[in-house]
């Protein structure tokens, strides 16, 4: 296949993950001109551009930045290094050619429909919000029902209010942030209903965005009806039982003109699927090894396309890792190199309350001295421990005062520990609840 352009590393997505991956790949030796970022929006920075609240960068820069400020630091780096990028450019297909190179098909107004041949691809497309339809909420389908992120764009980018009397379903971070944001712009946020018995967002957001403004959070509640033929007029919420089904007789109706949904984020892996990348049923993101490389050699993934993060700082860190590994791959240190030196990959298994891990396998020969394992738990646990088993042997337990699905957890493994352990086949990460209370 003849390609219109060539690059060593094509990065799909110019949000926080893609930008950090690009900078790190460059630092790790990939020439700026050999990298190409393809961004679908008309600016770099991704969703950070509409996250005008602060709280970003505490880990990365040791200071508190807004989303656009945080993005700007990475955008400056990319621009200063002369790493090329194309805006308003949508990738429509990625395929692997016979020689293992990747052909990325894309289009934009300036270049038309074109292809880029690359040695490595970094997937950094981010995620989307779960819409009303996927939640099976019955009722009418009027105007005024938005995902929290869409409302955020209206308010923060367009300077427009989608409505002034608001009910929010779901306590994801964007919903919590928008509860505060719309309140500050004069809206009345009447209630936040959350299906689960715990919030899906960060504790700090519950405190700063709801509690500080007196906005009630109703756990174990869901929306059972939406009224209004043209524009939302009222929303009914009801308590749910342990089966998460509404309990008859608990319905309460709120008059409102807007229903915001913050009910989960879904990694956008349609391109990855087309390419044949194996996806995790739990995260909906690619299954990756210690190098954040997917099941397709030379294709890496990072950021929210891989798994949904709570802090952008972690996205940047993870993406930098993917960028370095991609740079290594194109320098000939790729997985097609010397697999015998890598050894059989050690499987990382999520068990007992741990929903998934990233990565899900480790080639000891390829790992860094320290290997970060990130994961989320499936329920709220108090005073439990994170246990790490090598094969069937418990090698470490870490006490945790609280574990919650809304907060990403991590453990760090040392390469020497893995090397020392004779016949290591599996590493299991689990919640040890022997002394704990599950909520």
């Amino acid at each position, binding site marked *: 296949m003849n390609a219109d352009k060539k690059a060593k590393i094509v990065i799909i997505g110019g949000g926080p993950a893609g930008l950090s991956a690009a900078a790190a790949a460059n630092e790790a030796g990939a020439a700026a001109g050999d990298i190409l970022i393809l961004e679908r929006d008309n600016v770099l920075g991704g969703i950070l551009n509409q996250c005008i609240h602060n709280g970003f960068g505490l880990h990365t820069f040791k200071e508190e930045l807004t989303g656009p400020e945080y993005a700007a630091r990475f955008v400056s780096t990319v621009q200063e290094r002369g790493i090329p990028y194309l805006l*308003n450019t949508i990738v429509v297909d990625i395929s692997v050619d016979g020689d293992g190179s990747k052909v990325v098909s894309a289009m934009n*107004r300036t*270049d038309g429909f074109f292809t880029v041949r690359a040695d490595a691809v970094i997937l950094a497309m981010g995620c989307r919000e779960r*819409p009303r339809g996927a939640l099976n909420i*019955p009722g009418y389908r009027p105007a005024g029902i*938005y995902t929290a992120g*869409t409302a955020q764009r209206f308010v923060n980018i367009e300077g427009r209010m989608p409505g002034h009397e608001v009910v929010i379903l779901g306590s994801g971070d964007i919903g919590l942030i928008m509860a505060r944001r719309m309140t500050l712009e004069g809206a009345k946020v009447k209630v936040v209903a959350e299906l689960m018995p715990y919030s899906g967002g960060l504790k700090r957001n519950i405190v700063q965005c709801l509690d500080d403004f007196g906005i009630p959070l109703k756990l174990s509640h869901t929306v059972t009806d939406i009224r209004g033929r043209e524009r939302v007029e009222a929303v009914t919420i009801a308590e749910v039982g342990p089966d998460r089904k509404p309990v008859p007789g608990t319905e309460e109706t709120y008059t409102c003109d807007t229903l915001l949904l913050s009910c989960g984020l879904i990694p956008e892996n349609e391109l990855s*699927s087309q390419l044949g990348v194996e996806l995790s049923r739990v995260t909906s993101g690619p299954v990756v090894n210690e190098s954040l490389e997917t099941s397709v050699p030379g294709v890496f993934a990072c950021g929210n396309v891989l798994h949904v993060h709570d802090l952008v700082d972690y996205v940047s860190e993870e993406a930098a890792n993917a960028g370095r590994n991609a740079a290594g791959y194109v320098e000939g240190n790729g997985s097609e190199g010397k697999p015998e030196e890598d050894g059989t990959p050690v499987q990382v298994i999520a068990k007992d309350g741990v929903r998934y891990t990233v990565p899900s396998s480790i080639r000891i020969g390829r790992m860094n001295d320290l290997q970060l394992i990130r994961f989320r738990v499936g329920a709220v646990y108090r005073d439990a421990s994170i246990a790490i088993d090598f094969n069937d042997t418990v090698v470490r337990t870490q006490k945790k005062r609280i574990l919650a699905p809304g907060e990403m957890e991590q453990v760090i493994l040392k390469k020497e520990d893995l090397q020392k352990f004779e016949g290591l086949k599996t590493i299991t990460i689990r919640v040890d609840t022997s002394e704990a209370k599950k909520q």
Partner: protein
Amino acid sequence: MMDVIVIGAGVTGCAIARELSRRERSILVLERGLDVCEGTSKANSGIVHAGHDAKPGTMKARMNIEGSRMMEALSRELDFPYRRNTSLVIGFNEEDRHTLEELKAQGEVNGVEGLAVISGEEARAKEPKLSAGVTCALFCPTGGIVDPFLLTVAFAENAAVNGAEFRFGTEVTKISGKEGAFTVETADGTAFQAKRIVNAAGVYADVFHNMVSAQHIHITARKGEYLLMDKKTKGFVNATIFQCPTKMGKGVLVTPTCHGNLLIGPTSVDIEDKEGVNTTAEGLADVVEKAGLSAEDLPTRQVITSFAGLRAHEDGGDFIVAEAADCPGFFDAAGIESPGLTSAPAIAKYMAELITEKDKAPEKTGFKAERKGIPCMAEATPEERKALVAENPLYANVICRCELVTEGEIVDAINRPVGATTLDGVKRRVRAGMGRCQAGFCTPKQMDILARETGRDLQDIVKSGSGSQLLDGGKFESTH
């Protein structure tokens, strides 16, 4: 004074307007909504029925068979998505087999070709996902699927190109007068005069009929709820899978759409409220349960949206396509429930014949029978994409990423004859916002384009009806 006023711009009204526009006559279509396809036509199964369900001798049977036979050629002439995907009516026991044999016989009387009762194994060989409990099936090679929105839009655009005028946001409130001098009054106080009237008002057709005729008709809104699944489910079934019909309709079906989604539904519940297009928890659960009888491992986790539509069921149970007996010049296309979509081309043709008998209008020289649809970047080959982008760079600017819809296509949807003025109007023409994120990302971008192309402010952009503003007020000055 118009020659003909058509009330209602659903598929029936638009098809009739197009047929009427073949001859020299002035035609005005009055529609309460802000677009075509705002009522029953937008929320149905999108099926081109083979024609075995209707009782022989009924108008339904006649229109169904003829419409089904017309659809393929029409889809080329007017460039809308249609596919003869075949259909199966499935049975689970001997009683069902008996029903299928009766349906087959009935279909043959109606003139349906190629019907065959096959075994459960034969059915599963065609459709591997069919339930293990299926013991027999009626195979209908002429069954098909159509995009109901684009079918309606195609009729409307072509009617407009041939001179028919459309007025939206125009709710008819009163009809008076007689043949040659009817007066049609609307909610905003405007009155229109027409020599003849066609009543294609869906669930409200009885209201208009009863304004001029003492021989009252009665239409019940019969609600049907549906669930639509992600295109990832493409290929789950290829044929349309029906269950054995009951007196309330054809039962819950499982079908692919023309665009590769999977659709399940509808329920069938008579309701009082002619505006009651809300879904219900019970209805949606019922659809999932019943569809689950037809197929194994229904991918209900892939649901992207649900919706409800209202069938216009007339008490007599048949289509009424006729001149009102006691009001000459007033023509009904009433009680157009299923198979109304399939029948629309035939109803229109027949209606035009009825009117031509009366007005003897001469054929229009220069009638343009053909229409070319909006290009579809999502389904174009790389070569076609290159050519389209070379012609207009806006075809390379993707607005809706889930369905790969470009700015060029959206601008087309707005600027064509009978163009879109609403978000839903854009969606139905080019599928922007119809994908898995359900317009989460592209709503603001689409609104920008609509505002720019129609010279309106963002706060005036609506989802569908005139009270469905997407924003609450103008641009604010933040004080923070």
